[in-house]
């Protein structure tokens, strides 16, 4: 294997419901930095049916080239068909690095592709860098339940591959009208060659909470003491129009559904404001919220690690502080409403 044949940084562009996944835009931002450091191209690989118009977005967020596989067989994501697309493209155009979002689709696809190539695959990366001269990808990730960080290297194989957590990398400001090169590819794959069929897609009728999209999150921990105590969190969240987050211990106690869990084995969130109330601040929780804009911690233990990870801390009893906050916010926000209303 001659490494000189492998050039360029690629991002697998995940798309669904006619939209590019936000993690893919974040990866274009991260990939741009790697590509610039290496002096190579940044490319997106876009697979789907009727997705050509999405290339515009991919260029605006930083790609120089898009490899496009737009065929009916790619209507639904399926490991075998998408994998064949990525393998075909990699064989033809030989990238040095391919990044995937660490979503269920991205992980599924990357695991299959890496096995067939074969090459190394770093999972759930949270830090990315590249050696300028050798092109060696330095992909770092939490392991052992977040207790350690490890840098994983793949020295002897190309391309180097990694899945990258969402909400960790930053997307570039889109540059309207930025254009690039579209390379259209097709593969000869018949429906009969694919051993899985998507029979139906069922959207859950109750809209699932998406706390990763909220601007404000009020998160509560075991310090609330009981299911009843935890209702205080709901109350504050309602008052200020925020979503409710929780630590794992709260979810395990059954006070709230897993969809609300923030952290390593829950959701990674980056709201503008994050309240951590009665949460000790275990590393597995911190990794899921540390990039929030403004972190406010309320805990009765001054030594709680959460205070190392917040912008403002209040040492005190949640049952004393939070009701005061609710009352003050109610007053302040209703005044805001009047102000805005009177402005017309």
């Amino acid at each position, binding site marked *: 294997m001659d490494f000189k044949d492998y050039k360029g940084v690629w991002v697998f562009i995940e798309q669904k419901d006619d939209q590019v996944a936000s993690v893919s835009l974040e990866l274009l931002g991260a990939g741009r930095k790697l590509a610039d450091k290496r002096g190579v191209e940044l490319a997106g690989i876009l697979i789907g049916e009727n997705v050509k118009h999405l290339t515009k977005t991919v260029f605006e967020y930083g790609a120089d080239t898009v490899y496009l596989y737009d065929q009916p067989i790619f209507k639904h994501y399926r*490991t075998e068909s998408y994998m064949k697309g990525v393998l075909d493209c990699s064989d033809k155009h030989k990238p040095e690095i391919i990044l995937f979002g660490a*979503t*269920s689709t991205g*992980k*599924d696809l*990357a*695991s299959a592709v*890496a*096995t*067939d190539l*074969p090459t*190394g*695959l770093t999972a759930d990366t949270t830090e990315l860098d590249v050696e300028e001269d050798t092109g060696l990808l330095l992909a*770092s990730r*939490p*392991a*052992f*339940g977040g*207790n*350690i960080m490890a*840098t*994983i290297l*793949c020295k*002897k*194989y190309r391309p180097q591959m990694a899945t990258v957590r969402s909400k960790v990398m930053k997307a570039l400001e889109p540059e309207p009208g930025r254009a690039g090169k579209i390379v259209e590819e097709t593969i000869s794959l018949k429906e009969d060659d694919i*051993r*899985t*069929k*998507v*029979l*139906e*897609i*069922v*959207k*859950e009728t109750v809209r699932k909470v998406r706390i990763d999209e909220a601007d*404000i999150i009020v998160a509560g921990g075991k310090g609330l003491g009981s299911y009843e105590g935890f209702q205080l969190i709901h109350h504050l969240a309602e008052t*200020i*129009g925020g979503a409710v987050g929780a630590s794992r211990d709260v979810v395990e106690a059954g006070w709230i559904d897993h969809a609300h869990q923030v952290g390593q084995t829950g959701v990674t969130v980056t709201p*503008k*404001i994050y309240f951590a109330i009665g949460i000790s601040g275990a*590393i597995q929780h911190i*990794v899921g919220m*540390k990039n929030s*804009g*403004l*972190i*406010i*911690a309320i805990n009765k233990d001054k030594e709680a690690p959460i205070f190392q990870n*917040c912008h*403002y*801390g*209040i040492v005190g009893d949640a049952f004393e*502080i939070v009701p005061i*906050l609710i009352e*003050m916010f109610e007053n*302040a*926000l*209703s005044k*805001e*409403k009047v102000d805005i209303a009177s402005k017309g």
Partner: protein
Amino acid sequence: MLHIVACIKQVPDTKIIKMNPKTNTMDRRTAPAILNPYDAHAVEEAVRLKERYGGTVSVVTMGPPPAVTAIKKCIEIGADEGYLITDRRFAGADTLATSYAVTKAIEKISKEKPVDLIICGKMSIDGDTGQVGPGIARRLDIPPLTSVNKVVELNPDEKYAIVHRKLEDGYEVVRSTLPCLFSVEKTINEVPYSPLPNMLRAARYQPHIWSVDDLEDVDIKQLGLKGSPTIVSKVWAPPKPAGGTFLEGSPREQAEQLLSVVLEKKELFQGKGGM
């Protein structure tokens, strides 16, 4: 007869693990080895399918000799047979080398009794990658189905399976040919306390133990550290951020200061509260 193989891993209990702050390695004494929690669900699902359709459940693991304990745990859940592949030459495997070795074991198992279905856990709680399941499927050239949270139907005669795959906003119903491989979510089932007869059987049970030499057509270069394209180059403790400002005063004063900080982000609150 239906033959299901569940792949399992013995892991340190990361919930109570303590790290040595100097070396950033695990203090193994503080971390008892357990059956990877996700794999308990994989075995449980295999056992339920056996109860529904008849057949046999085998479990297989690559690991050090103490992994026998994890196999016994699976027998308690209701597995019929257990296979441990253990050899120094497996040591240091990344996911690619792990899927290679486990595939070789499954190939040998299926020579005795053809395998219809392989079930893996979603991920391990130590390595935490979720890459081994799809890797095994690719090596055996069978379809990988990840994020499975319900098995609707299994038809060993007509050789197909229908499952639900969890999506972010719902699920999809997928039909696959058999044999295939599932990686299952924890939500697929609940693992009940094991019935006494299973416990008794597990206590006496001796798994099949194979070394590399017992496997067939093995390319030694693809095993263990040598067969692993990825290497762990550096390990460190996650950085500790600087820490914040403590608000002072009575609870009411503190709340007031907090309010003014938060309300600086005024734009977030406009239009809230039914406007």
